[in-house]
């Protein structure tokens, strides 16, 4: 089994493979943020902080214990979710932009904390030993990404997901309808951070080197752009947003030094021409059904 998977991974061009893995990790991260910002409507500018907590936790678990990789990721996810719940408890009382700046501030604090944290080598960064698994990392990343897609799709259509959407649309009305808004918001925050933690763990073991500075404000912004670009609250949207933005810097590489210039301009133009995101307001299941002819076109 492992040999077969290894040969499968070996048959893909390494450069392509790297882009694919980046996209896979980005999907996990974007879907996590999509639960917080897209489904529940709580703007977070600090998603990278949870990614970094996950990355460092997972790296330390690999260094200190002999846990197999899937157990490592589970522990990492739970630790991140607990931290998120503890932070979410006080700060989720804030609304709108005050919440946004608080998450941003928290992310900066986490970054500075890791920059001064002795066990993780402070600003030098941490070299991560290979993951304890026979399955090659790229396959692992994509299995987790697909699990994440399934998980968020289920959450979205569950009772829990409907409560989150109600909070997004109108918090006061949701409260009046008997939804415990504070509890649901914290749970959504914890779930999104759980996925961020796992994404961080994958990132750490794929790159095998992590540095606190990698998880700054720009990383959070990167993830947020994926969610907004794809279309808030849409799972296929987040997947597409993550795929486009995680691979864009690579595909723009031929422009060498103009790369980030074009990337910035691209963000502006995509937003100006598709203000609701690429798939915002588009029902993908509907489109698919139409495409295979199960449903006549034109009828909504």
């Amino acid at each position: 089994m492992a040999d077969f998977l290894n040969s499968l991974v070996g048959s893909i061009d390494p450069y392509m493979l790297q882009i694919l893995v980046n996209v896979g990790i980005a999907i996990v991260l974007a879907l996590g943020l999509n639960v917080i910002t897209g489904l529940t409507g709580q703007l977070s500018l600090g998603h990278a902080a949870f990614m970094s907590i996950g990355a460092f936790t997972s790296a330390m678990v690999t260094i200190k214990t002999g846990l197999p990789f899937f157990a490592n990721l589970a522990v990492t996810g739970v630790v991140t979710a607990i931290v998120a719940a503890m932070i979410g408890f006080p700060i989720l009382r804030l609304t709108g932009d005050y919440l946004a700046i608080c998450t941003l501030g928290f992310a900066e604090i986490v970054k500075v904390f890791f920059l001064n944290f002795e066990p993780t080598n402070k600003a030098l960064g941490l070299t991560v030993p290979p993951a304890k698994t026979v399955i090659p990392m790229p396959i692992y990343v994509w299995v987790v990404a697909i699990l994440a897609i399934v998980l968020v799709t289920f959450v979205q259509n569950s009772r829990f997901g409907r409560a989150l959407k109600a909070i997004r649309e109108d918090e006061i009305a949701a409260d009046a309808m008997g939804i415990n808004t504070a509890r649901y918001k914290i749970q959504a925050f914890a779930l999104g951070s759980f996925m961020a933690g796992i994404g961080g763990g994958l990132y750490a073991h794929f790159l095998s080197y992590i540095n606190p500075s990698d998880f700054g404000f720009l990383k959070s912004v990167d993830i947020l752009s994926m969610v907004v670009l794809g279309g808030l609250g849409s799972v296929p949207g987040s997947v597409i947003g993550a795929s486009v933005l995680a691979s864009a810097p690579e595909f723009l590489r031929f422009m060498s030094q103009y790369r980030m210039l074009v990337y910035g301009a691209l963000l502006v133009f995509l937003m100006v021409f598709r203000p609701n995101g690429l798939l915002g307001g588009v029902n993908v299941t509907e489109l698919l059904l139409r495409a295979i002819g199960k449903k006549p076109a034109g009828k909504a």
Partner: protein
Amino acid sequence: MFLQQLVNGVALGSVYALIALGYTMVYGIITLINFAHGEIFMAGAFVGLLLVATFKVNVFVAIIGAMVFCMLMGVVIELIAYRPLRKSSRLSALISAIGVSIFLSSLALMVFGADAKGFPDGAFPVKQIKVGSADISTLQLLIIGVSAALMMGLEFIVQKTKIGKAMRATSEDYNTSALMGINVNRVISFTFALGSALAAAGGVLVGVLFNAVSFNMGLMAGLKAFAAAVLGGIGSIPGAMLGGLLLGVSEVFGVAIGYSSYRDAIAFTILVLVLLVKPTGLLGQKITKKV
């Protein structure tokens, strides 16, 4: 010692306040967190540097030149990147602002290179003045003086002029002011121009103070100034001044008592703590949500 650090803190804080004013005014009117604002500050610093180094003008002229340039820049950015998104969700405009920010900082990286540039020697005559136990440099006096003058000018424009009245009306109620015959688009352009001019002045002052201008100086300064604006209560002009000064002073004191490696966390820790106690900032108005 105390007096010395206080002066250092006020000098740094007044620059934060200058940048924070731009955030808070734009937010007050169109509720957009203008993430490109830090990059305008950076652009202001570069224009000031170019004027001083290449055209050999004095610092005051450089500040005015940078202000004029950034005014135009702010207006153009609003026109291209924010105006088409005025009616769509606020997050789209936020991402657009982030796009502008990435665009501008990479443009600066291409044009000016990656290393920090310093002002030429003698760009501003620095002398130390002894006041009690503190050494106050003329540079710090320049910063505090220019900032105070600009803030007074702003206060005059906002409180006493017709366009200032229009600004206050628009921030109170966007739709009603439009119905009352206020040209809202012009007010918004004017707000961007004012905010950008203040940021540009801040940029030149910081460039002279630290003697370093680099393509990525806008990011952290912008984030901290934004924190200052929120700390004071976003949308409130006196709040932004207060928040900026508070952050500047506490940062300098934090470094002075030995937390220099935590420097960037100090501002945000204060911010988070204050927001937990007072969720709309120090001088922000409590908004009662109507159903």
